[in-house]
Structures are given as structure tokens and as C-alpha cells.
């Protein structure tokens, strides 16, 4: 059905998917004697929604942590934008245009929603300490310019009303949305979402799914997400990587994955009759 040559392909709903943006080559990650990830390779193409699924403890979050620079794999290479990525600290990865959200919300509780989302712009704000201290002129202009970008994201995610509310006061679902806003504000090349719908009710899940699709559609952002809700994953994603016990057991479109026997056995369950 889909032509998956390196030049990219066109999805069923007519979105154009570009070439490879990021490629994981034979990643192996060990914690002492425990192998969290064993020899996994997959790629993420420009503009697609890529999902990583698998049962608990399959190594999905570890994979995301490898991508975002938290973990350094013992073996394997990460290729990004056509070049091998040297070992780097998480903040350097972020500066390269990779933003992420966390499974357990990692917002700055003492700051307002607006300030939290503004932190997403930090990589785009370059004025020095001195001009910031003086404020008038360069720093203020930069602040206003970035505020405009942030307000667009705030509009997009429909969180205008809570703009000046301290994050600590918000309910869970909104916090998730604010975290997505912070990641989006960075205008990332790749957006990593670690279980964006965990702990949400059906309506919140629907909202979040819509936002993810809209983000991909409107900004063309490449998205790599981990999710447990199979229905959501199969609906949202263009291609799916399936992991189990740190190994890759399937890779392909949702339909291909759904019909893959190994995946059915490992993830969707084996019938014991």
C-alpha cells in the first residue's frame, strides 16, 4: 500500500511524509546486568506520527530517554538530520530541536502557565545578561516577540483562560495540556510525547488526540509518541514500533502491526485455548 522508500510516502489521508529525520541504529541500553533495550533500529520520518507501543517494562520510555539524551546507549548510534549525533547532554539535544513531555508531568509548579510555556522559548531567546538587566530595548523586544509566538500556542491549545494561573493549582488534564504547550512553544523538529493520554478520561483523551493531530497537521511537526491506549495509537499514528522485553517485535503501519502475529501474542494477548 504505502511506498516506504527513503524519499518518503503519502499517507491515506493525503499528508506527505518526508525522508528520514531521525534514525536509531542498533541501540542497546544496559543498566548493569539488565538489558533495557536490545539492538533496536527504527527511523522517524519528517512529518509523520510515529508511535512506540509495548507492554509495561518493554523499554519504551528508555527509548525516548535515549532519543532525548537522558540515557547514553552502550551500543548503537543515533542519526539526526543525516548526521551521526555525538554524545550530548539533554539540554544540547533540546537545543537541536527535540522537545518532549513526560509521563509524570514535569512542569514548573511555582510558575504561571504563561511563564511555563515561555520557558519553552528559552532556546530562541539569545539576549545577554546585561541587556536583560537593562530590559528596555533588546530584551523587551525579544520578550514581546516570543510572547507572540507563545500566545499562538496558547490559543491553539485553548488555555487562554488559565494563562496567569500558577501551574500548581491546575487539574491533571490541563497540566498535561500545558506541558504540551511548553514543548510546542519550542517549535521542535521532533516532538516526543511520553504517554500523553495517561490517566485521562475519554473526553480529555479525545481533546488530546485532536491536539496531536492538529499539531502535526498545522505545523507539520514530526511526532514520536508512546501510548498505552491501543485504540488511540492505531487511530493517530502513521507507523508503529512495537517493543517487548526490550526487543523490537514489529514495525509498520497500524494495519500491518495489528495483523503481526508476534505483536498479537505479546501485546494484544494470546488466547489460551
Amino acid at each position, binding site marked *: 500500500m504505502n511506498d516506504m522508500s527513503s524519499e518518503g510516502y503519502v499517507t491515506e489521508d493525503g499528508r506527505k511524509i518526508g525522508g528520514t529525520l531521525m534514525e536509531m541504529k542498533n541501540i542497546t541500553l544496559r543498566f548493569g546486568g539488565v538489558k533495557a533495550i536490545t539492538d533496536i533500529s527504527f527511523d522517524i520520518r519528517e512529518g509523520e506520527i510515529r508511535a512506540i507501543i509495548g507492554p509495561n517494562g518493554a523499554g519504551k520510555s528508555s527509548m525516548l530517554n535515549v532519543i532525548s539524551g537522558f540515557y547514553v546507549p552502550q551500543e548503537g548510534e543515533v542519526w539526526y538530520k543525516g548526521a551521526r549525533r555525538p554524545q550530548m547532554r539533554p539540554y544540547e539535544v533540546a537545543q537541536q530541536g527535540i522537545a518532549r513531555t513526560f509521563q509524570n508531568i514535569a512542569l514548573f509548579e511555582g*510558575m504561571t502557565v504563561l511563564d511555563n510555556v515561555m520557558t519553552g522559548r528559552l532556546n530562541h531567546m539569545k539576549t545577554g545578561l546585561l541587556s536583560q538587566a537593562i530590559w528596555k530595548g533588546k530584551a523587551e523586544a525579544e520578550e514581546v516577540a516570543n510572547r507572540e509566538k507563545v500566545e499562538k500556542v496558547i490559543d491553539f491549545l485553548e488555555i487562554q483562560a488559565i494563562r496567569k494561573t500558577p501551574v500548581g493549582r491546575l487539574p491533571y488534564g490541563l497540566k498535561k495540556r500545558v506541558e504540551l504547550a511548553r514543548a510546542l512553544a519550542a517549535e521542535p523538529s521532533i516532538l516526543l510525547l511520553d504517554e500523553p493520554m495517561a490517566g485521562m478520561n475519554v473526553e480529555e483523551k479525545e481533546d488530546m488526540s485532536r491536539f496531536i493531530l492538529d499539531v502535526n497537521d498545522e505545523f507539520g511537526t514530526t511526532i514520536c509518541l508512546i501510548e498505552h491506549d491501543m485504540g488511540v495509537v492505531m487511530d493517530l499514528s502513521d507507523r508503529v514500533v512495537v517493543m517487548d522485553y526490550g526487543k523490537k517485535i514489529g514495525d509498520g503501519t497500524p494495519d500491518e502491526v495489528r495483523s503481526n502475529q508476534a505483536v498479537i501474542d505479546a501485546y494484544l494477548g494470546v488466547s489460551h485455548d
Partner: protein
Amino acid sequence: MFYREAGDYKTTYQDDNQTFPIKFDRYRYYFVLVVAFALIPFMLNDYWVNAIFMPFLIYSIAAIGLNILVGYCGQVSLGTGGFMAVGAYACYKFMTGIDIWLGGVQYALPPINIFFSVLLAGGVTAFVGVLFGLPSLRIKGFYLAVATLAAQFFLVWLFNKWEWAYNYSASGQINAPERFVFGVPVTGPNTEAWATYLFCLVFLTIVAVLARNLTRGSSGRKWMAIRDMDIAAEIIGVNPLKAKLTAFAVSSFFIGISGALFFSVYLGAVEVGEAFGINKSFLVLFMVIIGGLGSIFGSFAGAAFLVLLPVLLKNVLVSGLGWPTDLAAHFEFLIVGALIIGFLIAEPHGLAQLWRVAKEKLRLWPFPH
């Protein structure tokens, strides 16, 4: 009723980013500035300046400095006294003219104007602060507090032993010579109350504005991000070492200025162990905690609280109730301590939080909702 933002619409982000977005607040701020600069200098006498205004102004600078480090960046420091000492001694060297021995030849710099001496002293302290801030990348919380405690003791020891720092004076003290700003003496024995007051006020105003600008911009957000969750801060692209070190630098810069003023303008003569001991570190830390962590206003409030309270108590106990001075002095400690504890139980987020709550209430007053 008078205190509301309804109808006060902001049409630009500039307006929305103001320090005082509510009109009433803004006018009150201008009013305070006018009173502080144009009215108070004419009403001062020596007692008011020495007992209240001077310590308040100088400790406010120190509290703002420490608040940037502890309140905004979340790095606990007990080295404030030591950093103030660096500021004081650096200022002393700059205002008396630095002498350097290089290859057996002595080079002596001419004395620098007191205003710039104070600024340069802040710069030197910033450098020292960064040095002692380096461990903050690896150690956090109480352990960092202990590391900065080492800075406190080391610096006091250094200025006791290092003769160059106190110009080889026999007493080991440093004495501020007479120095002028626009022909008016601000240090030395012949100063006038209003001149020293204004000199410190200018510095406090500059420091407060700079601190506010830094904390509302991207630097402030980096610091607060590190404070609230350092892992998340790193993942959005904040270099933790850089953010922490800039916090140490800015904080120490302000603390250095306060130390320089404390020595040169306020005390005039300083013995390092006495003036800049561990007590000073705790005093400024208490100011920051009582005033409110992460709030510029809180720094002022905390400094005012801890400067005014003893004076108030003394007046009440000695002048009002007729207690003997020594008894009153000891009771003062008890009462201040008890007040601090009681206060922190009632409002752990400090005076700034009280102020915030009061403002929210006032916005709705006289309606309950």
C-alpha cells in the same frame, strides 16, 4: 473598591509585562520613589539613618541578592557573610588604590571613585561567588548549604590572615577614608545623614530594578525552572551549570555591593570576623525566608522586618516599659526568635505571600467573591 484591574485593559504585551500592571500599584510605586528620594532626605537625623534606614537599605540589597540565589534559583547558600566581606575588602582596596607586586616591582593603582569602587567590589564578589558556586552542579540542597558554609569560614579566615587585603594595618581592621561623590562626603567621619542615605538608596534602586528585570526575563525563567525541577529544565534546553553560575554571579554581585556599602558607608571600620561572621549569613537568609522566597518585594519586607523589629522592641521595652537595657537586649532575642517561628508557621511563604493575599482580597473588597 479603589483597587481593581477591571477596565484596565492591556493592548500590547509590553503593557502586560510591566512590573506593576495595575494602575494603582504603579502610582503607589512612583509615590514611594518620590517620598524616598525627595522627602525623606530632608527629614532625616543621624539616629534614623544609623538605626533604621541605613541597615534597611543595605540589608535589602543583600536580601535581593540572596533571594535571586535561594528564592529564584533554589540554591541554598550560607555564604552571604563571606561574600559581603569580599565586597567590603574589595571596595577598601579599590578606594584606597590597589598595589600589586609583579616581578619585584610595585605597581600602585590610583584610588577609584567610591561609586565605582562599590560597583567593582560587586564585580569581584561575583567572580568569587562563581568560584564557590561551581560545586552546585554536583551537590544540591543541604549539602550545597554546607559547601557554601565552607566559603563563609574560608573567606573570613582569609581576610584575617591576608595582610595585603587590609593594607598591612597593625590592627587588622579596615577603615574607610573620606571619599566624595560630587563633592559631598559619603564615607569617613564627616558624612551627613542625607548623603549616606541617598548614596545607599541609589544603589538599592538600581539593584532592585536590575533584579526585577532579570527575574522577569529569560534568565529568571531559567533560574526558576532549575529551582522547580532541574531535570525538566535541562530537557527544555537550560544548561544547568550556566544557569546556576549566572545565579551565583548575579547574587554575589548584589551581595558584594551590600558588603561594600556596609563597610564603607555604614560602619566605616570593619573587623572581618565581627562584621561578616556566620551570623550575617543567617540574618540575611532569615530576611529572605521571612520576606518570601522568590519575591523582590519579599526581600524588602524581610529586611524591614528584621531591621525594624529589634528597634521597635527596644523602644517599647526600654523606653515604654522602663526595663533595664541588658534585660531588654536579651528578651529581644527571645521575642524575635519566637516571632519568626510563629510567623513561619502561620505563613510559610513569607510576608510577600501575605501581601499577595491582601491584594487579592482588596481587589474584591467590599464583596466577598
